């Protein structure tokens, strides 16, 4: 089937098998390998991307054809104008990653959290990322990273994080 999708601000038209998952469409068809696959059962969240600038979705749980006519943002789109997104910077500053496999999904979930709730409490952050597993960090430095990014983003309200 032919689908039209905008990914990180760029429009794509591609033929896909109806059963192709969005995660594999992004990775295999578009070569955007920053989105990872970790569990096949919608449990780990390594594959989270942002849909239409407002929803965090597990791209392994959505068919590529369901993205027809929609806008997707992936980790590759976070950096804007040569500058790291405040979340990227915060994960780096706070040792919010170790092996880095969960990191793209973790950051995309956090982008959506901070859009909807610019000043989340620690409990709200933990709740928001509870669909994203991490085996390395114990989450403590991820929470710190999201808190730093929240402070940064609310200090500069003009910065729109992701092209949508």
């Amino acid at each position, binding site marked *: 089937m032919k689908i039209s999708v905008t990914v990180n601000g760029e429009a794509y038209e591609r033929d896909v098998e109806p059963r192709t998952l969005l995660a*594999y469409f992004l990775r295999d068809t578009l070569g*955007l390998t920053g989105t990872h696959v970790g569990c096949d059962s919608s449990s780990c969240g390594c594959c989270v991307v942002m849909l239409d600038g407002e929803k965090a979705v597990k791209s392994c749980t959505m068919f590529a054809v369901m993205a027809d006519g929609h806008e997707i943002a992936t980790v590759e789109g976070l950096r804007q104008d040569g500058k790291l997104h405040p979340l990227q910077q915060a994960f780096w500053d706070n040792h919010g990653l170790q092996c*880095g*496999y969960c*990191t793209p999904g973790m950051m995309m979930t956090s982008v959506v959290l901070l859009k909807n709730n610019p000043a989340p409490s620690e409990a709200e952050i933990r709740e928001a990322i509870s669909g994203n597993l991490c*085996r390395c*960090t114990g989450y403590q430095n991820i929470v710190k990273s999201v808190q730093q990014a929240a402070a940064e983003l609310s200090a500069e309200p003009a910065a729109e994080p992701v092209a949508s």
Partner: protein
Amino acid sequence: MATTELPPERHAMGVSMKRKEDPRLIQGRGRFLDDIVLPNMLYLALVHSPYPHARIVKIDKTAALASPGVKAVLTGEDLVAAGLGWIPTFHGYDKQMVLAVGKALFQYQEVAGVVATSREAAFDAVELVEVEYEPLEPVVDPFDAMSDTTLVREDRENKTNHIYHWEVGKREETDAALAGAEVHIKERVYFQRCHPAPLETCGSISDMNPATGRLTLYLTSQAPHAHRTVVSLVTGIPEDKIHVISPDIGGGFGNKVPVYPGYVVGTVASVVLGVPVKWVETRTENLTTTGFARDYHMDVEIGATREGQVTALKVKTVADHGAFDAAADPTKYPAGLFGICTGSYDFPIAFTELDAYFTNKAPGGVAYRCSFRVTEASYAIERGMDLLARELAMDPAELRLKNFVKKEQFPYPSPLGFVYDSGDYHMTLQKALDKIGYPELRRLQAEKRARGELMGIGISTFTEVVGAGPSKHFDIMGIKMFDSAEIRIHPTGSGIVRTGTRHQGQGHETTWAQIVAEELGLDPQNILVEEGDTDTAPYGLGTYASRSTPVAGAAIALASRRIREKAKKIAAHLMEAAEDDVEWVDYKFQLKGVPGKVVTMKEIAFAAYTNPVPGSEPGLEATFYYDPPNLTFPYGAYIAVVEIDRDTGETHVKRFLAIDDCGTVINPMIVEGQIHGGLTEGYAIAFMQEIAYDSGGNHLNTNFTDYLVPTALETPKWETDSTCTPSPHHPIGAKGVGESPNVGSPAAFVNAVMDALSPLGVKNIDMPLTREKVWRAIRESKA
């Protein structure tokens, strides 16, 4: 001489430098195995046995071969014909079927491989491989296996499920001491089968180039050189014709140490078809077939005086190894370093023995964030000490302080054969007790108990043994467990470090650069660290068992010092002084007694290529192969505080304090991160994670909805601190840390829960301490 002063924080070890590997990983620019796509690449998918034990009557490939895109279907018989039906297991004692031949020995065992033009085409055709099975009675429990009523391994000469017996220490003396002890405890504790489950599963791309005869093997490998040698020995391909590349690894934790059937089948397919073949595990394949850990049933016995002085320790273990003896242990240590089971305590005498059995379960026995069975040993002794404290009606902290090896006893020869390098156990536990406010917590607990509330405090004061290891004792398939570093300093004062290790999130790209910076006074931002490519890196045994810093880290420091020796000659040449008149001061060479007269390493590097010392070799590089003189012994004092809901059995971890002593710290931020992660895995093991089988041999935890990995919601908040007792025999005094928290924490959690339940008379519940198990224990207690 002009010098460019670098701020000292850019040089030294002990600084929380941000990680150099992060920029690519936070921008989706890491390169993990499944990100790699080669021209004309095919995809392998595997057929798995639905039965835990069954004869294979017939395999019909016809329909699968006719499926669109299918290029080949391989069975065990095909591999036998190719001479690759079996491969040696990790330590070489046993062999393992690549694909089931004759019979399948565990549920999900690999039975056939389908190679096709796409991942989807391969999985479609997997469904079309028709395998006729004749189910057999499975042996699921190792205690049932002892009877040999049903044989798991009919292929072996010895017609028994018993694999081996191992023992160390003095049996008779220990038994006599236990029999004569004033106080005596004995308890069976089970360290359950669990799985490392890194978020990236295992995988490979085998690329045999028919034109060059060279095999490039992309592997999720924690030990690329060892894998190259194994592939060469098993296939007969000369080692120079094998190039192993271990790309970015999405977590390993021991899971990515062994060689798995998928790698072998993919390689055979690539050799046969002459194109690259990719195999990437599904999560279910990861949890059901590759590298489980633990599964030790341990009878712990301790003798003591009435005053609480320990007099003897005995641990008798039954180990469930599954269908093959694939435990990842050094050759001479079939039960790994289990002899560390005397822990931090000065036992005058001890004995430990272990019997391993085959069952119809997946093979493994990997060191899951653990140095070869040290986690099991630490759990046994730390649970045992708490049971003894209870028997004596003594505070568990007091009992530990009374029995610790004293700092003046180091180097301490343990009764089971180790020589502990250094430690001050009293200082570290006292720091933990002070920091958490121990007396106040006990007072609070008494108040809560009076109200019928269940609050518990659990202590674990473990000693680890890591850094395998000295070549006299340690090898894997004959290869000694040294490690290596090669450092090249470029003319403009930047450089590259390569080692035989392979990080999977531990931060080597940063910490190795910091060691070089410390030793040579160069900017760590301009020291590139490269690992995982066997064509370029010097030979080493890889990253697991907390061996990277103790072994490769030492090699880096010593290779740097070799460079510094040569640099000194160049410095003398540049200053037109005698070498003896030049000294290394504050990261620079200085003319003795003339503080302003200095030469920087950057200047020396340039001179090494532009103005070499007449009559000597140009260039500035060194290699060091480090054979450690001893193991290292990191330790810690952990305290867990829990509250249990009587009605639901739910445990709430209210506080957890970890004081770790890993000797010299290279990067405190990274060490803290390692501890957070290890504690979280320890929490997971204590409360959630288990690979269980039902009595019919069916695997019950085949994905992340059944094999429970903690989320940010359950994971407690960690409080961490440290003491520092450097290792006297390590060039920079470092001991290794990545595994300490996973080794030490399970016992702290379980001790806390048992302490909470002690008013009810509950002595032991085996992990994972699920709500249901705790609730049942409360219900069945007399209270």
